[in-house]
């Protein structure tokens, strides 16, 4: 019956790992047209579902058994929660009559996941399943999206229900997300924009989630307001477009941060002003008027005090802006931000002599070699910042774990994204640390013949932390040296995946071209100088 619910929600694929307590459901799934993908560790089932959800725009489905299967999912669920990714997480649970007795493979997963789920269900009766699934999909994919957990005891999975009727609509009295922005607030915002001398538009992950890319670009173009982006907002505005200034924050572009600093009006679009994007949010409002647009009312006033809050779907609010706005940005401001942009020189020059690939310039080359609508996934650490700062995402996507900062995200997310968009080029960028966290998924990749391209930036260090230790802890490298790294090319060979190693930028470029030309998965290992800077 649960498989029947998924079919009604038009689910095409489920990522998971089996166990006794989820077997009845898996058996139904096996006999349904839904494709099931066996992962190699449960956390990656959630990441693959997340990559799938982000690439397809539909909730991703992942499945695990009770106890350790479920607890292994937690990091994946929390990762999705922090980045507001819609997931349906289905876990098996021990039999209803044994609940609470600490039997084999029992864990209170709804309790454990309480802080990381948008909502969760512990199913008490099979008759509730259709309603619960309908509600779960509705909750996961509307408003501010997020993961929803459905924990189903094994006896309930087997329970026969006389008649299966799938509800047409979810009716939850306490859940009615607001979509259109309040007309008065929109007016106030437009008035503030008309008065502003130095406005800046901040594009956050909410713009991506709302599918408001076209609206944001259209509004930026019609109003002429310069755009900066948070890490989660990368890819909304192509980096080569004239009024795009770059990424803000701790690891952001200097000119983008400078524009934020000098602005007298900051329009936050689906950006929650996390600490990595703005280090002192309380000071932001002292110098500038802040318009904060978010679908989640709780984000408004949480990290930054907004002068003009607008609760609503960013897409609809931006449409209101486009229709009603007659903003003209003073030329001096445009000239200034364009001058800052011009003065900004991205770091890193190609290196063909030291035996290492210079990562930042290589990222720029990689980006020029890829198709316009390619999907890029980046892991966490130096590789993430190299990619975020230097990649030119045009029509494609940039997928990374921005909120929780989960290492090992890029590879499974890339697999999920490729399964959602088989025709698109998918590139995964990892460090040697993060790659090893998810390396087991090469098995999933082979089993499902997933053609993704992988780049492993190997410096035999956990580079981001090493850099912190260099700056603050007297270069005492506690737990950051990856001695004992394997030969990644041989690992790839063991899986039957073509691979190569590059020790100079010239070689890396040549191999990357070869990699993109091949119609199979490929691992390109780049040797990177351990002292290569992040920024």
């Amino acid at each position: 019956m649960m498989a029947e619910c998924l079919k009604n929600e038009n689910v095409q694929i489920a990522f998971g790992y089996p166990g006794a307590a989820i077997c009845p459901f898996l058996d139904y799934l096996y006999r349904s047209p839904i494709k099931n993908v066996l992962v190699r560790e449960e956390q990656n089932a959630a990441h693959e579902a997340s990559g799938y959800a982000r690439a397809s725009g539909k909730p991703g489905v992942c499945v695990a058994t009770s106890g350790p299967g479920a607890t292994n999912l937690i990091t994946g669920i929390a990762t999705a929660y922090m980045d507001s990714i819609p997931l349906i997480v289905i876990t098996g649970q021990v039999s209803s009559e044994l609940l609470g007795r600490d039997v084999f493979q029992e864990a209170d997963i709804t309790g454990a996941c309480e802080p990381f789920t948008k909502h969760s269900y512990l199913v008490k009766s099979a008759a509730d399943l259709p309603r619960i699934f309908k509600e779960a999909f509705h909750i996961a994919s509307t408003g501010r999206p997020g993961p929803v957990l459905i924990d189903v005891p094994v006896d309930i999975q087997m329970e026969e229900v006389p008649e299966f009727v799938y509800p047409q609509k979810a009716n939850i009295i306490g859940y009615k997300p607001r979509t259109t922005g309040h007309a008065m607030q929109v007016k106030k915002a437009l008035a503030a924009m008309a008065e502003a001398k130095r406005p800046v538009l901040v594009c956050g992950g909410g713009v991506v989630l709302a599918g408001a890319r076209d609206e944001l670009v259209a509004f930026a173009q019609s109003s002429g307001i310069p755009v900066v982006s948070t890490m989660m907002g990368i890819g909304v505005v192509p980096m080569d477009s004239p009024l795009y200034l770059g990424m803000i924050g701790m690891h952001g572009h200097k000119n983008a941060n400078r524009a934020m600093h000098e602005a007298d009006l900051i329009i936050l679009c689906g950006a929650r002003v996390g600490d990595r994007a703005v280090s002192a949010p309380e000071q932001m409002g002292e110098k500038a008027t802040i318009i904060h647009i978010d679908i989640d009312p709780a984000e408004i006033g949480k990290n930054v005090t907004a002068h003009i809050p607008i609760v609503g779907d960013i897409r609809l609010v931006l449409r209101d802006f486009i229709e009603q706005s007659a903003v003209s940005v003073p030329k001096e401001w445009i000239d200034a931000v364009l001058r800052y942009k011009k003065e900004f020189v991205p770091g890193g020059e190609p290196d063909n002599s030291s035996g290492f690939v210079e990562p930042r310039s290589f990222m720029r080359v990689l980006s020029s070699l890829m198709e316009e609508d390619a999907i890029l996934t980046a892991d966490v650490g130096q590789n993430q910042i190299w990619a975020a700062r230097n990649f030119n995402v045009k029509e494609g996507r940039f997928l990374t774990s921005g909120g929780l900062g989960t290492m090992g995200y890029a590879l499974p997310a890339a697999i999920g994204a490729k399964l959602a968009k088989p025709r698109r080029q998918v590139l995964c960028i990892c460090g040697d640390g993060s790659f090893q966290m998810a390396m087991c998924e090469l098995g999933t990749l082979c089993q499902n013949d997933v053609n993704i391209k992988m780049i492993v930036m190997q410096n035999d260090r956990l580079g981001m932390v090493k850099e912190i230790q260099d700056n603050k802890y007297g270069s005492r490298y506690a737990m950051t040296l990856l001695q004992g790294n394997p030969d990644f090319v041989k690992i790839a060979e063991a899986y039957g995946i073509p691979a190569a190693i590059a020790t100079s930028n010239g070689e890396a470029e040549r191999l990357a071209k070869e990699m993109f030309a091949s119609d199979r998965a490929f691992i390109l290992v780049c040797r990177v100088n351990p002292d290569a800077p992040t920024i």
Partner: protein
Amino acid sequence: MKYTLSILVENQPGVLSKVSGLFSRRGFNIDSLAVGITEDPAISRITIVVNGDEYIVEQVEKQLNKLIPVIKVKVLQPDLFISCELSLIKVNCPTKQRAEIMKIVELMHAQIVDVATTSLTIQLTDNDERTQTLISLLKPYGIKEIVRAGTLAIEKGPTTARKQNS
């Protein structure tokens, strides 16, 4: 400052842990919490008294609203609601002091609900301030046990928490 919140929730398993978990997770302090069903058996009311500033109470309200089973959150306006709390107080009471304690009980409009040779159990339904007064009056006799139910609150006049929902 203390704020009283009236929260209507769907009466389903786990809802109380969802609400209380949110408080501990976000570092909000609960002064008291009381739950019971309402005129509609499918809906329960949770009355919470929190200690905090305006920022905290605004965050509490917004975060509570995000919970799916939460139907309505209302921060009650000071002076515009009635609140009371039920307390049961067991106090040492040798026979010779009984009359004395009964006098206090009468004075405070409390009730004696159990009598034994060496103790008395007193029931009081009143606001926090008067409850504290009774407790301090009884203290010299030796209080053995106090059971308090948590503050209940209802708005004055015809206004209800639910009405403003629509």
